[in-house]
């Protein structure tokens, strides 16, 4: 069987043509496979192998001739030849020399790309995100300064097309094991997480890893998703997708307290879920969650533990830290009575929020993100009484990098707190992972060494929580050892660090205790 086809007015160089002909000859085990321009010389060649047709004879040098002979499907062979020649003229992705200046160009160059990560200034992010969604790609917007109207429009468009729309202001996600923006190297597994709280997702995923579980997907929605204006569009859509996902056995939902309508929708979803759903909405709602059939978690750590247990893993590592040693309790009791206050300097917004919740019954904790108006710090840059500062807020990041990336501002604030004679306990969080500073503890070490004297009671205790995994670029184990060497009592979870703070505050001399 033979087949000859003439394609008019299609010039290709002979090297491309020969390479394609050779491949197709092998692929279809053909006796002859020829792709040539219809020059007189090539016509003679075709005549020699008896592949000259009238069509070819009448063709001109600008016309392409494809000709095959063999026992295989010759039509398919011709089609394959044609597509190989044309694909040789297609752009090739990757390569160091490849410079791509626009999203459109990148999508064209890498047609198989499926997710666009956007961290350009907010005013430009919307347009880019629309384009990505229009081109059928999932989107994560790291940028903030996007209006809530734009957020709703983007999320509605994404939902209509069955696409993920993470963010705006989504700091972290883990998709298919890949760390997006700020994320940690966590083990893959069967726990799917949807979080409207960036550091919340980091904390839960790292602790899932520590307790022996693994993460299937970690989806961030951006904090505003659980406001009624957005209505939990992305949280609900992602939760449903994970409930349908064969690799996900347990679902974890993490957020600050949603607004009422959104909360109700989330409860409806939990009621119909066929998989265990662990719910950590910092601040409670235990009764409603349990009534809906969910597994309630009061802290991020508890969410991780319960999810790991629900996934069928028997936890065989100790809770992230043992009780405080007696020496510390003794030192606390001897603390100078002027020293009464906690100063917590956070880089992770969700962790700071968790502190406000977890300590609310023990102390009046002032903050730049206070839940109660009367506890709002007058000046974010000056502590007053018990204070917890979220240093990732706008007033600290305006015109400078986030403190997770650039720690010097927090180091200065730490020095300030260490010199304050009224401070009894300092709490620091260290968030490791991709995107973060390469050695967050190291960046604070000098300040701690300079200002700390001893455990005599005349200097404050320093407590730390470290969010990270052994596989992170900074390795949590290394960071913990460094903290230990600095005399800092460090924990693998914020919740436990906060418990330690509570214990120390309670152990202070009676006249030093202050609500």
């Amino acid at each position: 069987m033979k087949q000859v086809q003439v394609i008019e007015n299609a010039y290709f160089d002979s090297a491309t043509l020969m390479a394609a002909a050779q491949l197709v000859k092998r692929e279809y085990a053909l006796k002859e496979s020829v792709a040539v321009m219809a020059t007189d010389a090539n016509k003679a060649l075709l005549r020699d192998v008896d592949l000259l047709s009238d069509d070819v004879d009448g063709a001109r040098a600008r016309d392409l001739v494809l000709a095959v002979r063999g026992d295989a499907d010759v039509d398919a062979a011709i089609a394959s030849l044609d597509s190989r020649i044309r694909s040789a003229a297609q752009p090739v992705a990757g390569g160091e020399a490849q410079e791509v200046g626009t999203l459109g160009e990148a999508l064209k160059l890498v047609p198989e790309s499926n997710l666009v990560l956007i961290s350009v200034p907010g005013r430009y992010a919307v347009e880019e995100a629309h384009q990505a969604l229009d081109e059928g790609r999932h989107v994560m917007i790291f940028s903030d300064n996007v209006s809530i109207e734009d957020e709703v429009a983007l999320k509605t468009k994404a939902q209509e097309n069955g696409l993920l729309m993470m963010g705006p202001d989504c700091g972290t996600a883990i998709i298919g094991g890949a760390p997006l923006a700020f994320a940690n190297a966590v083990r893959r597994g069967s726990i799917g997480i949807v979080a409207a709280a960036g550091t919340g997702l980091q904390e839960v995923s790292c602790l899932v890893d520590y307790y022996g579980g693994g993460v299937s997907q970690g989806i961030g929605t951006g904090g505003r998703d659980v406001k009624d204006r957005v209505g939990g569009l992305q949280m609900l859509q992602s939760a449903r997708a994970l409930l349908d996902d064969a690799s996900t056995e347990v679902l974890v939902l993490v957020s600050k307290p949603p607004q009422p309508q959104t909360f109700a929708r989330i409860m409806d979803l939990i009621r119909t879920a066929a998989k265990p759903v662990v719910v950590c909405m910092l601040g409670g709602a235990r009764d409603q969650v349990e009534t809906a059939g969910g597994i309630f978690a009061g802290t991020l750590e508890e969410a991780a533990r319960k999810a790991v247990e629900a996934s069928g893993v028997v936890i065989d590592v100790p809770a992230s830290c043992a009780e405080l040693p007696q020496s510390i309790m003794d030192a606390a009791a001897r603390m100078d009575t002027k020293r009464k206050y906690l100063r917590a300097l956070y880089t992770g917004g969700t962790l700071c929020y968790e502190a406000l919740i977890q300590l609310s019954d023990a102390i009046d904790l002032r903050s730049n993100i206070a839940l109660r108006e009367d506890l709002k710090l007058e000046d974010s840059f000056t502590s007053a009484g018990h204070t917890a500062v979220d240093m990732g807020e706008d007033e600290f990041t305006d015109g400078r990098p986030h403190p997770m990336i650039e720690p010097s501002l927090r180091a200065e604030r730490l020095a300030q707190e260490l010199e304050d004679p009224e401070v009894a306990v300092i709490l620091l969080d260290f968030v490791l992972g991709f995107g973060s500073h390469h050695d967050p503890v190291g960046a604070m070490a000098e300040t701690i060494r300079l200002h700390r004297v001893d455990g005599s009671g005349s200097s404050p205790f320093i407590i730390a929580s470290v969010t990270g995994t052994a596989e992170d670029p900074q390795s949590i184990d290394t960071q913990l050892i460094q903290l230990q060497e600095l005399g800092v009592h460090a924990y693998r979870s914020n919740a436990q660090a906060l418990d330690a703070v509570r214990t120390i505050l309670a152990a202070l001399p009676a006249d030093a205790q202050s609500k």
Partner: protein
Amino acid sequence: MSSMKTLFESEPIVVNLGLKEFAGNLAERGYEVTHVEWKPPAGGDDELVRLLQKLRPLAGQIDEANRTAVERMFAVNPVLTEIARAGDVVPGLDDYTILHAGPPTSWEQMCGPLKGAVLGAILFEGWAATLEEAENLAFSGKIRFDSCHHHSAVGPMTGVLPPSMPVFVVKDRASGGVAFASLNEGLGKVLRFGANGVEVLERLAFMRDELMPFLDTLVRMAGGIDVKPIVSQALQMGDECHNRNKASSALLLKELVPHVPRVDMPVEAVERCLSFVSSNEHFFLNLSMAAAKVTMDAARDVDFSTLVTAMTRNGTDFGISVSGLGNCWFTARAKDVDGLFFPGYGPEDANPDMGDSTITETSGIGGFAMAGAIPIVKFVGGTSEDALRFTRSMYGITVAENSAYGLPALNFRGTPTGIDIRKVIALDELPVLNTGIAHKEAGIGQIGAGVARAPHECFVKALRAFVNEYVSEGE
């Protein structure tokens, strides 16, 4: 389209826009990621961003219209069918009419070289006997001046085309379209650079009396010459078919030469013609331009299309036309050319950018195919990597890639084709133009070559007009 299910079941393949570190983290972990060297849209100009946003609801229609326009371009198969007297074939080119390059202009506003060329054309036609008479005639208003582009024609540099000049006739058999271009006179003192002395006029007479019939006979004997395959091969031989035409001129000659023995002309005349053509390394340029013109005219008048159908300069102004906006010109002052000068000349001697030859870039060759013409990147003092960069930077502002014009240096990627005014504005990336540099005084000729960019203002004006035309008030 990738659903969430397929995303969960596979690995993410990420496009990263913004912080480069995020791409680095993914790459380090072995994930496939493409980083975009992102710039703020429209150079950060809010008015332009708003104009672009107004077009967003029409994006589907515009994209579709642009696809239609570019498909029409790709379907064109330009064939050189004859060489004829311009007045006999170019519509509206009557006696006392002179066509010129660029958007329309008047005698008063013409630059030096264009005036020089017009005077030469008047003498060549015999409408005046002396330069002084010619100048009086030009000034009198008796001569009708018009753009070549309004008559399906194009000409390099001043592009001056009077009725008695020979032209290439290039036809598209499929659409029936036709375009014309003068024949290239060579370098030095030539009419297209505004020279009008005796040697110029004698050469023009030779081209009319001997070269035209000679070439016409050869072309007819050859049954017409397909232009596209010549361009296609020349792009793989170091030409970009605007500022470098060594290979294409040789390839053209190769098509013609076998028919020479059967030409019924005195052997001395044949010798003169052959040595004239073979000594001119830019002979193919005008043919390349006519082919580009017939190609771009096929893309005209597609409603909703933002495709640029012409870019051209008259030595004073630069003009562009846009498919969905009919025959309007959107103009700005022509810019200076960044390039290398021949010994004895410098930037102070240069005329601003001039000629219809940027029709080649409009059609996706010339500066857009610089990656195929690494030898001439020297003109802009660049490296071979710069040549590749020029071409690569044009993919962002075009709507298609011409697989017929695969560039070896880019792994046979097709040339970037079909300029979209939206993309030019959004990316703040202006079309790259390869060009010769003319002396600002008439008659001195070419004094250098280099690269220019089309003026931003042309595209801004076109975008505003497009929004006015297609977006109703209140939206």
